[in-house]
């Protein structure tokens, strides 16, 4: 196996991105671009899910079985891949959120804010 080129910082982001994707899909099924738009929108432009991270992340969540994809037709009549969250994806989302909460709390403690 070729060495994983991701740095620790990316790891943190990657895990978070998976969570954000699942959160977005939990509301409704969407295509890749819409997911990026929604995350950017909801984060008030602070988090830009770029294609370079988004599509590998979508591949990853599918491989883990958290999301499924199917081809459909967009409102503009174009062939588009739609992603749907699976039952295990919802369960995973719950786990990731509580992990994130725990981590968030821990970091805040370290920073002396809690």
């Amino acid at each position, binding site marked *: 196996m070729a060495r994983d080129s991701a740095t620790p910082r990316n790891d943190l982001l990657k895990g978070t991105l998976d969570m954000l994707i699942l959160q977005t899909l939990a509301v409704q099924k969407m295509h890749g671009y819409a997911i990026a738009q929604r995350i950017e929108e909801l984060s008030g432009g602070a988090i830009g899910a770029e294609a370079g991270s988004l*599509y590998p992340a979508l591949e*990853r969540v599918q491989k883990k079985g958290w999301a499924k994809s199917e081809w459909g037709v967009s409102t503009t009549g174009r062939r588009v891949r739609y992603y749907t969250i699976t039952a295990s994806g919802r369960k995973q989302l719950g786990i990731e959120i509580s992990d994130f909460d725990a981590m968030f709390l821990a970091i805040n403690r370290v920073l002396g804010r809690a």
Partner: protein
Amino acid sequence: MSLIDGWSHRVRQWVNPQQHDRDLNDELSFHVEREAAQLAHNSRAPISAQDALVAARRQIGNLTWVREETRRVAGLATVDAFLQDVRFAVRSFRSTPAFTAIVVITLALGIGFTAAIYSAVNALLLRPLPFREPQQLMSVSLKIPGVAGRREIDNRRWSYPKVVAFRAAQSTYTDVTAWTLSQFTVRLGDKAHRVGGEYTDSRYLPTLGIGLALGKNFPNRDSLTSGAEVTVILGYALWRDTFGADSAIIGKTLQVDGFPFTVVGVAAAKFRGVSGEADFWMAAAAAPSGWGNSDPYNHSYFLLGRLKPGVTVAQATVAAAQVGAQVDAQFPSRDQSLGHWSAVAHELDGERTAPNVRKMLYILLGAVLLMLLTACANVANLLLVRASARQREVAVRLALGATRARLARQLLAESVVLALAGGVGSLFVGYTSVKMLASVQTLMLGQTNGFTGLGTAYMSAIQFDFTAFAVTASLALATGLIFGFAPALHATRTSLLTATKDSGNTVTIGPRRFTMRHALTIAEISFAVVLLAGSGLMIRSVNHLMSVRPGFDAAGILALRVNRAPEWSRDSITTYYDGVMARLSETPGVSGVAMSDCPPLARCGSADAFLADRPRPSNERMFGVGMHFISPEFPSLLKIPLIHGRAFTRHDDERAPRVALVSERAAKRLWNGDDPIGRPLAFSTATNKFDTATVVGIVGDVLYDSMDSRPVAEVYVSYYQTHFTYRMMLFVQARNSASNLTASVVNTLHAFAPGFPVHEIGTLDSRVNESMTNVRVTTGILTIFAVVALLLAMMGTYGVVAYTVSQRTREIGVRVALGATSAHISKLVLWHAVSLAAIGLGVGMAVAIVATTALRSMLYEVAPSDPVTLVGIVVLLGASVLAATWFPARKAMRVMPASVMRAQ
């Protein structure tokens, strides 16, 4: 669930990576378009669609990187790398076609032949017989002691009354049954079928542990009761294919050779009796009285028993002798000179293949294993050479930044590609060889004489054995891995420094290292020597056999066995056979017809004889002679020369004085040089009396036993002057081709008498050939193995010598520079090859001398230490090694000192 979703996603992508790429491209271009639309929408100034797309691409960044990153996450990078490795391997093999072809062919032949021979051994010797707990089944036969100079016979069949007597007296078997196979015409309604049927009894199916698909077993009436209902059990295939699987068949009446039989059951599927050729079974005890089952001296049954639990084979052997003596007391031999009969028990499993076939199989198995070892050694040798030649390549690639894991993966891919190619080739070789083995007709002859194997164990039962294939293939592939992958992997440990510095041009100092390659080459040569010795001896033996003159001319003669149909009485039988012969001689294409009770190369009757004009000697001092009952035309039709006196005529009939012909050998042995013409000869008959006949002629010797036998004393009596006409052999001389005559001869016989039982129809030539099939097949296969092994040994020698020459180029250059002539150099190279060959030859010869003793019984007029063969091997091997050394030696002789120096 998530596991299934995830894996189905992965599998879809691995199965079709191109689809994954297309989808991703679509998705990304959609992303770009939407991004562009968004930009155009947000832009204050109007913007062209083209500009928007460019801007969107700029914003998104490197699309190729996105694609590759996604592929990596998808795990497709591994697939990519593997496919790349395979492509690389294929390309590198294509650049070395000779090496690749040799390895693949070696693997294919080694694995394929071994799997084929093992398939044969498994089918004929190893596979358990298709009966319940077959190891408990014993075959018991009558034993006739070897008195009066006769050989002991221990495979004599039983009469049914003796079977009943044995069953009543024995206590070692849970049950005892009997069977015998014959051909019958079965008629139901207006449909008639010629099928094999076994006579047996109600104990048969339970003893073998075979159930019924339909109906019941025979009624339990195994004592001989006349007038009982005669019953038949159908074989599953006959019932299904011929009688349409009609379950209402139970209780219906079938005509078997004209007699009514009631169907009581249908046997379990796939069961075809112990003979392996039966389509139905009849209860012997209730058979029509004319069929001879109540005659205690009509020996036609094989006896089969299932040992009681806990009874050993040794105990069964002792018990069989005791019970056999009791049976003999109850039915004493009518011919006192035959002594007291007994019985012997053998494991049924050991009886299933004729001893000569068993022997042939073991010899071939040994030979093929030797060849497999040679093949493995050759593959190992070639791969070792390749691995060491690649040391530099590996070192350079390591230096250029390849990881060891990456190199190892690639080397593994090469091994896998080679192995797969060899595997596919070996499947082809194995499958073809099995087909050829299965088509060998070797057992037909001799079946008439005794029990020479079960139908379950005919050559035609050989099927390709995938277990054997798997075992052999994994052995050969393990060789490939150990000798190809391992050294290559080891090479990845070499440092760039040593590999490039020590670039294969150093001068060898001190004694040369004895390497693995040398050992492998010597092994190859010695295996080849053993195989050459075996096949050489067999070839010499076959040549001797082929030049044997059997004493008759088989050309253009069709032979067929006819049995006395039950409705013919003994008195009318000569009239009947005369009619048959008259009709046959009128058939177009027939130039002559003769009859004998026994064909050449299939020993039939024998008798005790003495000179009737001398005092009758004691039984032990009588002459053992072969007895023949012939029609007058027999000697002339088979071109057996009349040496002296006259032949039989039609007038030598039952009213005329009894006359006899004797063979040359008989004339010498019995009369010691005196003229036997006109002298009376007494000989024993089937009815335990002595007949006397006057010798009227001497005919040439004929080999009645086998091509490798010696002529013995034979006595011929006219069949008009005897009652022994139970079954006869007809000989039809064709004007042109004997085999084309088959159909018209059978038609003539059936027109003469519908349902006339005809067996063993075939040309006399083919009988002669079949009598040598075993030896020929063994010789042919051994020779193939030996040639393959010799070629492999040549390659091995070439490989190791060529490698050494390339390693010693610099040394040779220096020697030439210092004044060595090309003769010196070639001697240097040749000496190397010759020393390898000499060691291999020595080891091989030592093994061969021991190993070829296994062939002794198959050899005819050739000793295992036959000097011609041994010298031949030395010459052949020497020539082969020299041929293999020629190219490397020439290369060495042409080494230019200047170019070697310049290369440094």
